[in-house]
């Protein structure tokens, strides 16, 4: 007698739980990020990059250096090399090493462990692998090239600005590369793809994708997606990321051309 009543009441309870829990969390999370007019929290449109500014030759005794401000993310990339490697070094190619460090004041809470932790080591290895592919290492056998990255102010994702700054520093150093390497992130919130996420947008539980490409060669160097995404949305995000990277490539190329113009006028 009592059991049929129990089983009929259970599914109703489950249904109401599902409805209330997903709807409310969706609205709490999503409505803060894109307003009704279509602008994000920091005033950008969904397909707009953050303010991008570059300055070259910042550390004159390095072979190449680049100071980059990508929105709130400020970082310094310096290149030393190519110089004579150790005796056990590769006989046909150059070795590329990467050293990544943050300052204590780069995030809002003072950070004591500035180098050597898991995130830094992963980023070092990732950047080293990316540039081992991108640089024509056969021109410098038995030598070593060092990349030093220092984050002065961090705004969420460090990997993309680091890759972009390192590309520009390599161009400043005059080391031959197969192509520019551009990287940017893309997210999917409220049925729209938004590019170039800042820290607030990254902390949401929405799908994210980081794409590193060589724009002129149309090659994907690295692609990271650690969220569960439907494959239609995935294709859309991939397209949006490619467009973002092409925008970034235009900005980077313009910066390099401006630098060349100022240097040649001085000469």
């Amino acid at each position, binding site marked *: 007698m009592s059991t049929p009543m129990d089983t009929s009441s259970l599914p109703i309870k489950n249904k109401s739980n599902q409805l209330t829990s997903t709807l409310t969390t969706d609205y709490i999370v999503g409505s803060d990020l894109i307003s009704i007019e279509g602008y994000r929290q920091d005033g950008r449109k969904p397909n707009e990059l953050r303010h991008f500014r570059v300055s070259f030759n910042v550390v004159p005794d390095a072979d190449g250096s680049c100071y980059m401000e990508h929105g709130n993310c400020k970082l*310094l990339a310096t290149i030393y090399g190519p110089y004579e490697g150790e005796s056990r070094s590769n006989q046909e190619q150059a070795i590329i090493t990467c050293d990544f*460090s943050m300052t204590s004041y780069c995030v809002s809470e003072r950070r004591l462990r500035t180098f050597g932790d898991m995130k830094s080591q992963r980023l070092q290895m990732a950047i080293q692998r990316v540039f081992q592919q991108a640089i024509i290492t056969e021109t410098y056998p038995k030598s070593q090239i060092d990349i030093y990255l220092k984050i002065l102010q961090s705004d969420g994702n460090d990997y993309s600005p680091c890759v972009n700054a390192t590309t520009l520093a390599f161009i400043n150093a005059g080391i031959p590369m197969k192509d520019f390497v551009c990287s940017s992130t893309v997210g999917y919130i409220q049925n729209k793809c938004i590019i170039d996420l800042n820290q607030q947008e990254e902390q949401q539980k929405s799908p994210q994708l980081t794409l590193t490409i060589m724009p002129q060669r149309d090659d994907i160097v690295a692609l990271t997606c650690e969220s569960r995404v439907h494959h239609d949305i995935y294709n859309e995000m991939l397209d949006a990321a490619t467009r973002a990277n092409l925008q970034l490539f235009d900005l980077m190329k313009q910066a390099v051309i401006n630098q060349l113009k100022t240097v040649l006028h001085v000469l």
Partner: protein
Amino acid sequence: MLNISGCRSLRIFGRHRRQYTKQIARSLNYILNNPKCFDLTQLCVVKGHHCWLVHVDISVLRYEGNLHDACSFAMKAALSETKVPALKVTHDEETNEVSVDVCDDPYEYGVLDVSNLPVLITVGQISGVHTVDTTIKEDSVTLARITYGIKPSGSIVYMNKDGGGSLDLLNIRSMAKIASDSGPQMNELLIKKIQLSKEKQASWGHASERLLFDNDNFV
């Protein structure tokens, strides 16, 4: 705390580099915690209950010699510009509790008084000649150097000898004289530059739109 990771012109690596940074941090620490140089009571909020904790983090972007002095100049300049947020202190009579709230207005702040803070001057000896403010090449051949902490009035508050070379008493006396002459000069220069830099900044609105290493930012 001093961070020199990423500076390759400093030709010491690994454990020795950490010791070197700790040495500089220790001397700056001594200067800051000395009641005659820095008035620690201005950091007090409620006597016996709350006080401000100040962390000084220095990141070296490029090393060209004379790191001791440069760090002390940077520390003094940064401390003179530090904004201490205004606080609301409420004292509950019944429970004898003191609660401190930070004001929301970002333009209400107090400044620290660093007029008495000493500045480090390093005097080195290279084959009988005393040098001040050495470059990287001069640093590598200096066998003995003394770092003096000198107040704006010219009096010496801190002295530390570094390096494997030996110095006799006559040398030490003349080095002390050189340091106490150049100390007040550097102090005045530093204060003048801080003043100029403050005038260049906008007093309201956002910070300047220029990049960090732009020549216009420097004074």
